[in-house]
């Protein structure tokens, strides 16, 4: 009997073959640029074990724990203050960025491009800029978080509002309501669950970011990490790493719980 089933593997066209080859070349080029070395990978476990042996047990001295604890509190203060202000400022910015709401296409595009620029610059770079602008300390870190949150939430809030059901807005428009009233009464309430979800993600992101802002003098526990490594005080550095991990995981759990409580309940 003649086998009519198709070939298990289709022979790629010349263009596809060229594309796959080019892709592989680019990956190897990037690995070379990143200094990828099998030798270093193979030799790293003993070094890592050496670091672990010197870092464990972590420094549990009460005085150190108290100092790091206050630094962690400051880190959370930077994150929460920056995220809250950033989320609040994101709403009006998103209104202008969202297509078909209150601003024209040209303004939408300009604001979206600005938001893209904000996101393109990492928070650590914003922290450096604000350290120059307002000096060393947590305020510079908070400003960096604010800007980073605006870049994140501004874009997603705008997308959320564009994606809402247009029915309620149309019903209000049909009765002569102004655009701003329609947005306030129909669009924003409809997008609120998405705002809350995005806002909680922004808070998680802010907490993660705020732990490293201290590396550039923008406040928070990051400076303790840097000092620990600079002074080869690995037990203290390990304590900082563990504290960051615990706090970030706790915030993620809390955020997930809040998301279900607020949005799940409302749905």
């Amino acid at each position: 009997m003649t086998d009519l089933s198709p070939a298990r593997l289709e022979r790629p066209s010349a263009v596809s073959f060229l594309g796959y080859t080019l892709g592989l070349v680019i990956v190897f080029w990037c690995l070379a640029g990143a200094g990828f070395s099998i030798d270093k990978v193979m030799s790293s476990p003993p070094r890592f074990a050496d670091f672990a042996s010197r870092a464990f047990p972590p420094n549990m001295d009460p005085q150190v724990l108290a100092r790091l604890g206050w630094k962690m509190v400051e880190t959370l203060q930077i994150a929460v203050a920056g995220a809250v202000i950033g989320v609040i400022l994101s709403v009006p910015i998103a209104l202008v960025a969202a297509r078909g709401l209150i601003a024209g296409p040209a303004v939408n595009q300009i604001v979206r491009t600005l938001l893209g620029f904000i996101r393109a610059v990492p928070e650590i770079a914003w922290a450096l800029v604000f350290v120059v602008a307002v000096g060393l300390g947590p305020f510079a870190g908070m400003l960096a978080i604010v800007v980073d949150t605006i870049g994140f939430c501004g874009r997603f809030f705008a997308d959320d509002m564009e994606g809402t059901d247009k029915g309620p807005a149309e019903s209000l428009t049909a009765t002569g309501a102004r655009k701003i009233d329609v947005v306030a009464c129909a669009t924003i309430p409809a997008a609120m669950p998405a705002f809350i979800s995005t806002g909680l993600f922004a808070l998680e992101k802010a907490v993660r970011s705020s732990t490293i802002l201290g590396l550039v003098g923008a406040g928070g526990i990051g400076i303790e990490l840097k000092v620990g490594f600079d002074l080869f005080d690995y037990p203290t550095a390990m304590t900082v790493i563990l504290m960051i991990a615990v706090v970030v995981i706790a915030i993620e759990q809390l955020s997930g719980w809040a998301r279900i409580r607020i949005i799940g309940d409302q749905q």
Partner: protein
Amino acid sequence: MPTRAILSSTTSSVTDLDLIDPAARQARPVATGAHSALVSPVDIEAREVAKTFGDTAIFDGVSFRLARGEAVALVGANGAGKSTLLRCLMGLIPVSAGSVHLLGEETSAAQGTALRSLRAQVGLVSQKHNLVPRLSVLSNVVHGFLGKSPGLRHWSHMLAPDASRSAAMHALEKVGLADFATRRADRLSGGQSQRVAIARAIVSRPKVLFADEPCASLDPSAGEDVMELFFRLVKDEGVTVVFTSHNIEHALRFGDRILGLSNGKLQLDATAASLSPSDLRGLYD
């Protein structure tokens, strides 16, 4: 068989069925649909209205005049352009040709504040209720004042002036939902939601009400209740009503006049009393 032919073949049951063809319309533009338009003020007038989306023509040459207090059913098959025509009449989407006059003003020429002032005299009830789900029933009804009194005070019932709150409660009372004022809109049944939408539409006492398949998303019993309630309320107020419906029985029962769209043309303009269900079925072929 073309709709006109079908309708022509049913003249045994039609007394003053007014079939529209371009020649007849040009010869007697005011008399299309005749009736009370000749003696009452005209609330809505469409003159040779056409609408296209890109290269697709939805309808063209649509002309009619609707007198104050008339209840007009707009019927036709899916895709005939009923909802599009309704939106053109409200000025929600621009017409491609012709003009629409609403309460004496040309909606296609009105813009900004003038258009909003015009719309403030209009109410809309949609198929999907279109309530804001997360807000209370009372806030949704208070939103009905946004056209006539824009601003923060009508964003929520908590901020609304006493008169507005009282009027909103009165409207809810009329639709039998005063006890649901503080309930969230997304916790209502379909029939209750549509009744709240009706309360929102009538709360600011509009002169013209548009209803786009108001009971299409409801079960037959709830749909019947909603239509009865809607027309009882608006008839009391002498409001002009234009509603679209796939339900031939509803169209004939609640409409004083029937406009039928088919094949991109206004194929039928007649009093409901002069028609039987079989007269309308041709529009759906």
